[in-house]
């Protein structure tokens, strides 16, 4: 397995907001085909870690490699860093499909237009080819009938499935999910999780932040337990869930009621 391509690699990643250091040196590697689930308590830095991968937050220190390429950083003049080369960053970002907790679909574009937006206007694909591909993806997430509808008219589960189709449309090197079902009514969680599980089975590279432990255990190839900005435990789901080593993880996994 050593020759699998590295999709995402973080080395010694740190992030501070003012006086608060949220990430204190996190390293992780996602090879292509890996499904990495990040778990941890509220405020442990899970979202921040995920957002540092595509520089929605700029790391304060450390390195980010996407598809083997180091994202160039330079001092921002205020003691932090920023991406040194916007064109490089945008090129690398374009091949990471991100799925947000609150969907973040573009409200002024139909479902189909949301899906073809990045392929056409960022990757420069031919519009007809992008539409054909988008229809295939919408069919796959069960939304082909809604292709010409605006996001406002969709249920939460449908919005999130549309967002997943949008992520797939860039043929991502890795998909990033930040609590993709947390904003959904309980009865809609299943339809979204089953789409993600399907993608995992198909060998998509994914890094996902989730509070759905059963789901993480079933689909992830690796679990990362984040606590206070550091990786406290890491390993195969069976090891992490069945034999937690740290007291903190045991407490985190224990039934809350």
């Amino acid at each position, binding site marked *: 397995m050593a020759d699998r391509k590295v999709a995402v690699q973080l080395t010694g990643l740190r992030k501070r907001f003012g006086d608060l250091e949220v990430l204190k040196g996190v390293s992780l590697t996602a090879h292509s085909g890996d499904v990495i689930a990040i778990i941890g308590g509220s405020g442990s830095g899970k979202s921040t870690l995920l957002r540092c991968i595509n520089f929605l937050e700029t790391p304060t220190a450390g390195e980010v490699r996407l598809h083997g390429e180091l994202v160039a950083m330079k001092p921002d003049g205020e003691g932090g860093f920023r991406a040194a080369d916007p064109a490089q960053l945008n090129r690398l970002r374009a091949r990471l499909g991100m799925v947000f907790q609150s969907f973040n679909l573009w409200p*002024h574009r139909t479902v189909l237009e949301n899906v073809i*937006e990045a392929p056409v206007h960022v990757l420069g694909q031919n519009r007809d080819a992008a539409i054909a591909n988008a229809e295939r993806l919408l069919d796959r997430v069960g939304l082909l009938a809604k292709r010409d509808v605006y996001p406002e008219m969709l249920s939460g589960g449908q919005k999130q499935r549309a967002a997943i189709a949008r992520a797939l449309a860039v043929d991502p090197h890795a998909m990033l999910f930040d609590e993709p079902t947390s904003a959904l009514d309980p009865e809609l969680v299943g339809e979204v999780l089953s789409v993600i599980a399907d993608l995992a089975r198909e060998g998509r590279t994914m890094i996902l932040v989730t509070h759905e432990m059963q789901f993480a255990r079933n689909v992830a190839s690796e679990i990362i337990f984040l606590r206070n900005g550091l990786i406290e435990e890491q390993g195969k789901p069976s090891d992490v869930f069945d034999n937690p080593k740290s007291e903190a993880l045991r407490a985190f996994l224990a039934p809350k009621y």
Partner: protein
Amino acid sequence: MDFLNITDWSLLALNSPGWGGALLWGAVKTVQIALGGYIIGQIIGVCGAMGKVYGPPWLKELLAIYTTLIRAVPELILILILFYAGTAALNTLAAKIGMGPIDVNGALAGVLVISTVQGAYSTEVIRAAIQSIPSGCHEAAAAYGMSKWTTFKRVTLPLLVPRALPGMSNLWVIATKETALLSVVGFSELALVAKQAAGSTKYYMTFFLAACAIYLTITLISRVFFNQVEARFSRGMVKHK
């Protein structure tokens, strides 16, 4: 229909001695000045809003002074300051370089004042519109690798326009009425013509009501126009009736 007899309808005839033609000419002037002031004002507004949202701190401060000051001072006073103080300043300057007195054009002063005032309000309308765009829309654009320009064109602008249009159409209606203030510096727009007609014929109600009818017509026509523009640009927005 007795009250119809309180006037002499021939007073509104288009040709002299009727005042209809003069009133319409005043209305044309009103629309011209309003349009000039409005368009320049909206350009100031777009630039001002960009500066307020994306600009460096010193620019934000400067724009805050501009919008606060202009919106605090009555427009009538602004017009008087700009017209008389402006004329005085120009003439002092002209005398210094050995020229005779300059006649400041009322229309030019009018457009200047209205665009300055409109610019201040429009800056606020457009700034609020930009800031009411859900941040997730820009976050998604960044996550999918859109450049700044593509983001502006494909995300910011189309989301900004429907949010700014109601405020901007309101500003247009205000601009048409602001022109009436120019009568104080003797610029012959609709209100001044109506006043002159009323004064010389003593049929006050007739001419002021005629002027009202013309202002109302301008507003109604504008509303049809803005409604169409709003309908055209509100893609994907839920209509709250």
